[in-house]
């Protein structure tokens, strides 16, 4: 029998049916068709599936969909305001902080979670915070720079 789950996803009331064994990642992609969240490894190592649940950054591949009953889930989709990009997204594009893009939604969710807590992180803080997000294309430098520049921009500096 399918389980009926009610949660808030990207600010909207959401109801879905799932199997008890299905991960949140599988439900986001295959049931709700919110494919902004990506799967890299499925075992917690790459961070492509990062989402925020009740304010905490987690891997949606290591969480059962049934666990989000009554909880609030934020995915990469809610980072932009409709068609208006979040400064992080704009910087990623301007700085070429992505190539294939598979890791990008995870990096954006994780970076936003950092900036929501700390608008003035050091480079080392950014690197440690993002250590659970793997990128096979960019070599990380442009990603880290984009995050630092966005932080500066949001603090009101010139970036």
């Amino acid at each position: 029998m399918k389980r009926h789950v009610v949660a808030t996803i990207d600010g909207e009331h959401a109801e879905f049916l799932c199997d008890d064994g299905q991960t949140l990642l599988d439900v986001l992609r295959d049931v709700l068709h919110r494919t902004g969240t990506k799967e890299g490894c499925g075992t917690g190592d790459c961070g492509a599936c990062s989402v925020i649940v009740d304010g905490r950054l987690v891997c949606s591949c290591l969480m059962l969909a049934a666990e989000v009953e009554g909880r609030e889930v934020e995915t990469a989709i809610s980072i932009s305001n409709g068609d208006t990009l979040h400064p992080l997204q704009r910087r990623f594009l301007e700085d070429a902080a992505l190539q294939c893009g598979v890791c990008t939604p995870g990096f954006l969710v994780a970076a936003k979670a950092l900036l929501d807590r700390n608008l003035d992180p050091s480079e080392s803080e950014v690197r440690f915070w993002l250590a659970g997000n793997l990128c096979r294309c960019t070599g990380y430098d442009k990603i880290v720079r984009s995050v630092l520049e966005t932080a500066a921009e949001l603090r009101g500096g010139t970036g």
Partner: protein
Amino acid sequence: MQYWSPGSIEEAVGLLSETGATTRALAGGTDLLAQIRIGGQAPERVIDLKRIPELGRIDVDAQGFRIGAAVCSAEIGEHEELRAAWPGVVEAAELIGSTQIQGRASLGGNLCNASPAADSVPALIAAGATCTLAGPDGRREVRVEDVVLGPGQTSLALGEIVVDFRLPRPQYRTGDAYLRLIPRSEMDIAVVGAGVCLSLDRDGHCTACRVALGAVAPRPILVAGAGEALVGHAVEGDALAALSAAASAATDPIDDMRGTRDYRIRVAGVMARRAAVIAAERAASRV
């Protein structure tokens, strides 16, 4: 696989005590769900412990700290009072995985997964932490070092769960520290982990010391001889060398891609010594 999320300890213990179906407790799932994914073998039922209020809170009172077994590491790291009292335990919890893993990984899961390399376990053992177990026969209090028996094996009875970890308020001039060596700076499994908790008298002589090691034996170990080597002495010179030698001598590590047996034996002594120095600095800074 069936998912259950009981709201009370009694209900969870009841579900976990039923035989006839393979049943596993679920906390953060960072071990369990990853193992299911890799091994392909799911239990028939998982019992989520995170909706049980007692397991999801950190409480502080005159006696000390009660850390719910399902509290995630990120929350432990945010608890300023706990960090001030037990910096070694908190730094060990904060070493577990990435930011994403921190948002889920619990001390109960780290202990009950029973990996020899679990980071929080040596720190908890050194600090003298106990844990409360609840099972079909009621509750009991055990020392953390008595829980893990070997890789993947614990002393918990059928249906038993870890409810919480208890730490006293630290004694006069007591400090703890945890150090881990990994091949890179984040996201790897310990080659060696060393937890030390020690107390100093007014003159800086050690009055008590506990040393615990991870990743160098089939289970995390308390090395009584290493702690005793320091008692009565200042935290320096020959006494530290004796602590280091006793730590190395107590190990029985494996060879793997992260380090050879000989390397681990030597590094265990080095990490124990360095952790002792940090613990002593912390103890000395307390009045």
